[in-house]
C-alpha cells in the first residue's frame, strides 16, 4: 500500500502541473497576470525603475525558457518570485549596482514617495506625521540586509504566506520568521524614532 502513495500523488499532481505549464506556454497572458507583481518586487528591492524593468523581463524570459523544468510543486507566482529573487540577488552583486547604490541617497526618493502618498480625510498636521513616519520606515526597509528586505517585501507588500516565501527564497519557514521578526523590529525602531522627533516638537 505504501508504494501506491506516490503514484496517487503523482496522478493528482499531474493535471495541475499540466494546467500550470499550459499557463506558462502563453507568455503574453503570463506577463499580463504577473508583471506588475514581479516589477513591484524588483523595484522595491533594487530602487531602480530601469533595472527593475530589466529584471522583470529577464524573469519572464527565464521562466518561459525553463517552463519544462517547472515541477508544479508551487504556484506560478511563487516560481516567478523565486526566479526574480535570484535575478535581483545577481543584480545587487554587480559592480555597477554597488556604485550607484553608494552614489545615490534614498532620502530624496523616500521623500518623493511620501509626497505622493494620498492621505484623504486627515488633517495636514496628521498627514505630516504620517509622511515623516513613512520616510523613516522607507529608509529602514531600504537599509535592511538583502534577505530580510526580500522577506519583508514578500510578506507585507505581496502578502505571501510564510511557506510560499520559504519556497520562493529557498529558506526554512523558521528562518523566514526569524528574518521577519528582525525586519519588523527595525521598522518598529524607525517608527519610534519618528515618534520621538514628533514629541520633541
Amino acid at each position, binding site marked *: 500500500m505504501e508504494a501506491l502513495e506516490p503514484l496517487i500523488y503523482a496522478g493528482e499532481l499531474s493535471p495541475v502541473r499540466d494546467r500550470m505549464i499550459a499557463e506558462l506556454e502563453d507568455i503574453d497572458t503570463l506577463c499580463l497576470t504577473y508583471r*506588475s507583481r514581479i516589477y513591484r518586487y524588483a523595484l522595491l528591492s533594487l530602487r531602480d*525603475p530601469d533595472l527593475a524593468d530589466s529584471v522583470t523581463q529577464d524573469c519572464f524570459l527565464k521562466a518561459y525558457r525553463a517552463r519544462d523544468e517547472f515541477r508544479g510543486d508551487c504556484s506560478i507566482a511563487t516560481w516567478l518570485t523565486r526566479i526574480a529573487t535570484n535575478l535581483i540577488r545577481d543584480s545587487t552583486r554587480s559592480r555597477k549596482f554597488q556604485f550607484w547604490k553608494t552614489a545615490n541617497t534614498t532620502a530624496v526618493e523616500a521623500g518623493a514617495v511620501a509626497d505622493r502618498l494620498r492621505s484623504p480625510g486627515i488633517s495636514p498636521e496628521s498627514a505630516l506625521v504620517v509622511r515623516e513616519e513613512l520616510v523613516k520606515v522607507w529608509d529602514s526597509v531600504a537599509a535592511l540586509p538583502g534577505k530580510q528586505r526580500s522577506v519583508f517585501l514578500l510578506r507585507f507588500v505581496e502578502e505571501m504566506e510564510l511557506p510560499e516565501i520559504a519556497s520562493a527564497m529557498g529558506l526554512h519557514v523558521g528562518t523566514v520568521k526569524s528574518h521577519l521578526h528582525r525586519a519588523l523590529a527595525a521598522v518598529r525602531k524607525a517608527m519610534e524614532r519618528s515618534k520621538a522627533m514628533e514629541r520633541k516638537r
Partner: protein
Amino acid sequence: MKTYHLSAWEQEEYVLNRGTDLQNPQLLRHLADCTACRAEVARLEHGVATFRSAAVEWSSECLATRPQQLQSFPLRRLPITAMRWAFAAVVPLALLLLALLPLHLFHLSSPSVTHPVAQISDDALLEQVDEQVSVAVPSSMESLTHLVSTESSSGPAGAAPGSKHIVQTN
C-alpha cells in the same frame, strides 16, 4: 487583572501571522482585553500598511511610465535566439552553395565544348562500324581464316575420299 503586556516579539508575531491560522490564541485573548497592547500593535500595523500603500502606488506610477514592452517582449527577445539558430543553419548552407557554384558554372559551360567532340567521336564510330560491316569475314570468324584447308593437296594418305582434313597452324 492583567499583570503583563505583550513583548515586542509577541507583537511582531501577531503582525506577521495576521490573516493566517497560525495566530496564538493566548495573544488574541490578550489583545482583546488590553487596550495598550492593541494600540501598539495597531500602530505597527499602520506603519507597515502605509509602507505598502506607498510602495504599491510608487510601483504603479513607475510601471505606467514604462514603455509597453509586454506584447513585444517575447517577440522581440525570442527571435534573437531563433535567429541565432537560423544563422547557424544558413551560414554553412551558403558556404556549401558558394563551394558548389564553380562546379555548377563549369557544368553549364561544358556542353558547348563537349558537343563537337561527341559528334566527331560518333562519326568516327559510325565509320568504324561501316568498315567492320563491310569486311568479308567478321572479326569473330577471323581466326578461322588462318585455318588451312587440305582438301586438295597435302592430305594424309589414309584419308577417305571427299573428307576434309583440317590442320591448325597455330
